[in-house]
């Protein structure tokens, strides 16, 4: 009997190569390729007067130096807007190489290709760019002032787009509310900061007219189609492989970053393989960031703490360009209500250009801001009305019998935001049990009595996951009985090879080690969307299920012919197809795969089955491939969800502040999480751990700091502080499983969940510890000392 693998904490199939140094990341391909390096803008905003490249070009071993003037056709157009919308008033994206204006420090101006990276960087030093510096818009609120410097010369203000939406009647509800409050909340910039930087390695074979790209991207399929269009090539001749990718967290999702276009362009133009591996400084100034938002919220509240109306006007910092349109602030707006019923809710978002690195989703993608605002509102209401904040939460929850629940505003995919399932009161209850609320409160009281500055805070969230448009899977049974799964999803560490194998193995009755999974290789599956937005398990996983079922149907048909039973009478177990209730009557999957392909191609006894079936068919006047069948056991199926599915959870943090230094220690961190049915609890816990670490980093350490003139002040790991093992608390977890009714596996995504409510929980804990409101994140030790002194004032 094959053990069911779904739900089991099976160890990962992909581990061994990583543990033995045999993973293959972009930098590991084409060791002898020429290297590209880039001249990047020194100014946040400037006109380019001239670029002097002759001295670089004259160096030996320099194969080419390129500026905008060298680009032709589509390569000289602006890079695409990936998420267009009518509300996007100024869809500005950058050129692959700056044309005549640069709009952030780090914007690519010129490319060098040389024999190796050392020589390429030598050449960079010989390139002289003459700039006319221009005033820069850097501060988010400053950029909307009437006298603000303009981020783009051809615009009259800095507004990239604006959108508003309302459900219910906010003004009427506010007018009738017993209490109306107004608060301001701010989240500052951070960045995904994967340990592997970006990298692109291109080889163009002129005789075959074939382009092969190894790209540390989260979305190889989009890169493939985009490049095929740009080059005017048949997509079948363009292959994009996302090999092992050393972390993504959003920054490697499809952008058409300039380098992704320029490196293959240079490889074709120069006729040599070209490689570019981003260095860390380039990553800080040349790869996208996220998080900067400022919210002004008006809230009308009933005397019992129920929120009657919420009106949120907020600014979103889109940086210098907006390839992702308004998607980030739209996600914030759609997910701001979280687990609470806001019958009267209105938002007005404005996305603002600044002369800083462009923004696009970073793990959480607009949701940490949403949770921060909503959870701070809950705490403020609790303080104003003197009602326990947990009670305020409970009084505002969407009830367990109210699903599917219509939030009333538009979701990021353009459809309505509808929560598919949930049980928020039960989730909070599970968290409090794990926390041991009363004991924790007693311990905090005792700590305070001994003079320590300690506090407890909570955060809640609902996360839309598993968005469309679609994802696919190819599942086949090989002649050796191995089940081969391919998906277009690249992996950046999320255990796709294991969880997809679990799904296929269960469906086809084979052990895990008899399933292989190929990820992110357009040579295996050309259609797909990508790994982002906590969507892979949901959309890709259900596609794997669907393709596995189709292969199973095919295999049952072949087995039925051989065993002379009805297809419904066979079961799949232990790598073979058995006649139900007839022990001994079975065929191994590998032999079935051969039988399904009645031609002369294979070695060994099993191979004769196909020929025998073929002869039998002719003898009985039939054809070797009966009507409706295909050779081989192979299926490609797609899953396209109608909308997202909504996970949820609650976090609790206990923090201690050192009043002298402002240092914050997280003493305890407790997580409740619900992502529907769990495929692999070990993997889910790993995702939560990593998400929480990024959340704690985002709350206490990680801030992208710009000077007033747009210079990035902390563009190194010495100055941009990420959490280490020494700062991280031991995370305590409890899970509930509220299945999604919207997909066959009943699952929801988990990738971003850990990060979303952390800033909220830490802020609330700090407020509890310090006794002053914490309405801004992150909080560095200096900020904490400032808050403490504001209390003493």
């Amino acid at each position, binding site marked *: 009997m094959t053990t069911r693998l779904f739900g089991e904490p099976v*160890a990962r199939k992909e581990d061994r190569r990583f543990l033995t*140094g045999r993973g293959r990341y972009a930098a590991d391909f084409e060791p002898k390729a020429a290297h590209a390096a880039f001249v990047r803008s020194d100014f946040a905003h400037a006109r380019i007067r001239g670029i002097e490249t002759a001295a670089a070009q004259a160096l030996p071993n320099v194969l080419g130096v390129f500026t905008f003037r060298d680009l032709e056709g589509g390569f000289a157009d602006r890079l695409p807007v990936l998420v267009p919308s009518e509300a996007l008033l100024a869809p500005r994206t950058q050129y692959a190489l700056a044309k005549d204006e640069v709009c952030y420090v780090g914007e690519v101006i010129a490319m060098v290709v040389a024999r190796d990276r050392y020589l390429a960087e030598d050449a960079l030093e010989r390139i002289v760019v003459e700039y006319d510096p221009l005033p820069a818009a850097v501060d988010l609120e400053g950029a909307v002032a009437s006298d603000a410097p303009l981020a783009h010369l051809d615009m009259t203000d800095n507004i990239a787009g604006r959108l508003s939406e309302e459900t219910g009647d906010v003004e009427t509800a506010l007018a009738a509310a017993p209490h109306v409050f107004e608060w301001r909340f701010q989240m500052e910039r951070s960045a995904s900061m994967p340990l592997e930087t970006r990298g692109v390695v291109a080889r163009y074979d002129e005789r075959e007219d074939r382009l092969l790209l190894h790209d540390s991207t989260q979305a190889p399929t989009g890169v493939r189609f985009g490049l095929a269009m740009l080059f005017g090539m048949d997509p079948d001749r363009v292959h994009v492989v996302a090999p092992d990718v050393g972390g993504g967290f959003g920054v490697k999702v499809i952008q058409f970053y300039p380098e992704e276009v320029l490196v293959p362009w240079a490889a074709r133009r120069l006729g040599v393989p070209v490689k570019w591996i981003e260095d860390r400084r380039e990553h800080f100034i040349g790869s996208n960031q996220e998080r900067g938002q400022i919210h002004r919220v008006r809230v009308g509240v009933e005397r019992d703490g129920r929120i009657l109306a919420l009106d949120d006007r907020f600014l979103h910092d889109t940086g210098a360009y907006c390839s992702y349109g308004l998607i980030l602030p739209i996600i914030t707006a759609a997910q701001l209500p979280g687990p609470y019923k806001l019958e009267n809710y209105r938002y007005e978002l404005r996305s603002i250009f600044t002369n800083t690195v462009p923004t696009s989703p970073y793990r959480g993608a607009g949701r940490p801001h949403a949770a921060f605002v909503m959870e701070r509102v809950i705490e403020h209401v609790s303080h104003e009305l003197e009602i326990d904040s947990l009670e305020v939460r409970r009084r505002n929850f969407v009830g367990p019998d109210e699903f599917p629940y219509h939030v009333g505003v538009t979701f990021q995919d353009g459809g309505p935001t509808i929560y598919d399932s949930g049980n928020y009161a039960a989730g909070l209850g599970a968290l409090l049990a794990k926390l041991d609320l009363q004991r924790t409160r007693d311990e905090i009281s005792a700590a305070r009595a001994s003079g320590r500055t300690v506090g407890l805070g909570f955060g809640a969230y609902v996360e839309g996951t598993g968005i469309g448009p679609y994802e696919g899977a190819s599942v086949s049974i090989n002649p050796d009985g191995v089940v081969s799964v391919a998906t277009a999803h690249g992996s950046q560490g999320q255990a796709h090879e294991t969880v997809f194998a679990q799904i296929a193995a269960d469906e086809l009755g084979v052990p895990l080690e008899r399933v292989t999974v190929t990820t992110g290789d357009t040579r295996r599956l050309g259609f797909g969307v990508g790994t982002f937005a906590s969507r892979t398990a949901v959309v890709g996983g259900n596609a794997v299920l669907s393709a596995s079922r189709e292969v199973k149907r095919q295999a049952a048909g072949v087995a039925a012919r051989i065993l002379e039973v009805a297809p419904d009478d066979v079961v799949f177990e232990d790598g073979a197809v058995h006649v139900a209730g007839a022990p001994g009557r079975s065929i191994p999957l590998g032999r079935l795969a051969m039988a399904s392909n009645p031609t002369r191609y294979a070695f060994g006894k099993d191979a004769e089955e196909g020929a025998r079936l073929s002869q039998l068919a002719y003898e009985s006047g039939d054809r070797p491939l009966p009507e409706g069948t295909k050779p081989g056991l192979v299926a490609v199926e797609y899953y396209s969800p109608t909308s997202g599915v909504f996970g949820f959870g609650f976090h609790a943090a206990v923090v201690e502040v050192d009043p002298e230094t402002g240092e914050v220690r997280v003493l305890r961190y407790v997580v409740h999480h619900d992502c529907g049915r769990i495929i692999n609890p070990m993997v889910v816990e790993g995702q939560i751990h990593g998400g929480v670490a990024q959340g704690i980093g985002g709350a206490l350490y990680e801030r992208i700091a710009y000077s007033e003139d747009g210079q990035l002040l902390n563009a190194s790991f010495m100055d941009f502080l990420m959490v280490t093992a020494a700062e991280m608390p031991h995370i305590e977890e409890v899970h509930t499983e509220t299945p999604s009714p919207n997909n066959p596996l009943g699952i929801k995504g988990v990738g971003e969940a850990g990060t979303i409510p952390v800033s909220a929980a830490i802020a609330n804990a700090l407020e509890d510890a310090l006794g002053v409101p914490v309405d801004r994140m992150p909080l560095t030790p200096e900020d904490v000392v400032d808050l403490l002194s504001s209390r003493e004032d």
Partner: protein
Amino acid sequence: MDIDVSVNGRRSAASVEPRMTLADFLRDELGLTGTHLGCEHGVCGACTVLMDGRSVRSCLLFAVQADGHEVTTVEGLAASDDEILHPLQQAFHERHGLQCGFCTPGFLLSAVELLDTNPDPTEGEVRSWLSGNLCRCTGYQNIVEAVLLAAERMRGVAG
């Protein structure tokens, strides 16, 4: 410049540019791409290798500085051509101490040095020791647990 380095027990004689880093030498000249470059300024620890048993940042050393020394990279940890994993590798696998795998070689080699010098570390000592290596995926929890598990097993073997 001519150098003679022992890498994972195998001697390599080569002629290298003085400015070539040890990391680039290992990766590009010897093809040992298990050593990863995360920051190239000595903070992230992904490029950690052992030189004469002590952990070093191979991005901050020049290849010529390894002349005459013994270097161990992640490729040299498992026995019998990767058939038998080092107890740390095995524990990382069992405890899900890795996700994307990019920082993993550096953590493994730092942990080898830790357990060489302190076979019975506390959780706090493991966290403190590993604070010189950055991981963006795991939140460190399972890495710490894996190191403690490996330490326990290695003490058992030694005793």
